[in-house]
């Protein structure tokens, strides 16, 4: 019963958003160029759904690949850094130099160095997810209660075992936030990456839309990206619930 009520609230908020959109567009208060209405949206969907599906597929492959590789690399390097003061001292400046580089800024350099293939596009997503996850991993490792590590060490675990059996499971709840942020960012990154000469993908579709100020296409792209991101987030949450059943947060 209570769960039902909560679902209704979620439903309501989506309904209100859609309601506002319908009100603004159907009343004619806002012109379609500024905010396309249901008519424009319907039209653009019916005329180009095939193209859009094709673009979506390409985008999804780049996003998923980049997100998974970048996040995994971030976790692994983060664990490495947090494991040893010397590694940390060595890696920290490199990470700190790389981390803030705006992906937009290196697009021309990446193209110069690597051309316009799938590699530099994926790399941009990998890089973006990597720097998000690595920082959170280092923080999460620092926040693992010492007593668990101490207990493991007195039970004979070496540094590697401690990492595998204690640090890794203990940081999962804290990592979830970072992974979710990285997943969200990966969609923004893949769009930026597809600015680098991709000839397909939602990012490409968006550039074309921007060039012609086709706000209907822009809106459709945003809806698609949001939907994909939402689905990804739901998947992460389901995975999380399975991985952190032991945690207090679910009781």
């Amino acid at each position, binding site marked *: 019963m209570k769960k039902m009520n909560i679902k209704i609230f979620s439903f309501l908020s989506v309904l209100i958003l859609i309601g506002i959109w319908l009100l603004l567009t159907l009343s004619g208060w806002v012109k379609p*160029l*500024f905010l396309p209405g249901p008519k424009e949206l319907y039209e653009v969907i019916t005329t180009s759904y095939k193209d859009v599906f094709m673009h979506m597929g390409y985008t999804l492959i780049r996003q998923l690949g980049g997100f998974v590789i970048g996040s995994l690399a971030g976790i692994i390097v983060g664990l490495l850094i947090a494991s040893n003061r010397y590694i940390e001292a060595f890696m920290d400046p490199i990470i700190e130099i790389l981390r803030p580089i705006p992906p937009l800024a290196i*697009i*021309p*350099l990446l*193209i*110069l*160095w*690597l*051309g*316009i293939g799938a590699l530099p596009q994926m790399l941009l997503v990998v890089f973006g997810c990597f720097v998000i996850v690595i920082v959170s991993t280092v923080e999460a490792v620092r926040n693992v209660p010492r007593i668990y590590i101490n207990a493991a060490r007195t039970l004979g675990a070496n540094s590697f075992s401690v990492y595998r059996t204690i640090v890794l499971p203990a940081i999962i709840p804290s990592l979830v936030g970072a992974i979710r942020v990285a997943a969200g960012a990966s969609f923004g990154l893949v769009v930026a990456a597809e*600015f*680098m*000469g991709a*000839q397909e993908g939602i990012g*490409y579709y968006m*550039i*074309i839309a*921007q*060039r*012609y*100020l*086709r*706000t209907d296409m822009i809106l459709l792209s945003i809806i698609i990206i949001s939907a994909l991101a939402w689905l990804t987030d739901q998947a992460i949450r389901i995975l999380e619930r399975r991985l952190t059943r032991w945690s207090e947060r679910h009781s």
Partner: protein
Amino acid sequence: SESGDLTKVNVGLMPYYDYSPLAFAEEKGFFKAEGIDFKSTMFPVEGNVAPALVQGSIDIGAFSDTPSITLASQFPDLEMVSFHNVFKGFAIVGRKGSKTYDQLIKEGKDGQAAAVELGKQLKGKSIITTSGASFYMVIEQALKNAGLSKKDVKIIDMEPDQGASAFISGTGDFYLGGLPQREKLEQEGYPAIISGDQIGSGAVILAGLASTKKFVSEHPEVIQKMEKVWFKTLDYMQKHPDEAYKFVADWSNKQSGGKSKPADVKKFFTDYITFAHSKAEAQKLFYDPNSPTNWKKRYENLIQYHEESKEIKKGSVKLDQLVPAEKIFSDLK
């Protein structure tokens, strides 16, 4: 809005030589003399001029023919209020060792034949360019000359800046972009094989100013004054070339961190662009029905092309509504 007895006008510009006369006019106080409080907003990305104009951040924006048509299909309030120049400096850039138009002429070919031969060279090749951009028609025309169509080449469609990087890193056989990219590539040793004016009248661009119905109807006098200032400025620049070239070089360097010299500006002004320096020149360039760069012919062609390529919906752009420039021009005192 009025400030004192001056009318405030916010004009969106791009940091190109094409629009430098407006900056020069401001410098010389020509706008003030006409009662205009001129404020310029610099847009390094062309794509942002249109939304800024639609939103009202700027009253008038620097525009050229192709983008005005694609935007007008979305934004019927757009008005192309004046034409100021014919830009012919866009060029197809090739890899090192490519044959160029100049070489063919030296070998004794006439212009027409050279253009056809170079067009044929594109067959089966990949070309980096930007659909919907002002220079995009250059490729269309080059192919047309050689009896080819877009199906005979592979278009790699990307933003001009990134396209240039990709071209340098080895992507594509040819490149067509904006002037800054052309110059950069030439500097790096990639030859411009053929430029807009060499390809033919379909490969040159008409550029001027665009505004909105609202602004034009509320401030018809401002549009007139902008025209007057333009001709006054160009006249002055013609009479004082050294001062003008130096100013333009400095202005451009300030915008782009470049190292242009007055001589570079002079080359540009003579080779790449044809300014309407006076009312008479404008009449001859844009409004004479027999001119190869008559605006109406050009727009009719472009609309037809974009309707056929389905980039705009049939009938979504009405020529008389989009381009009141001729009427404004003929009303000029």
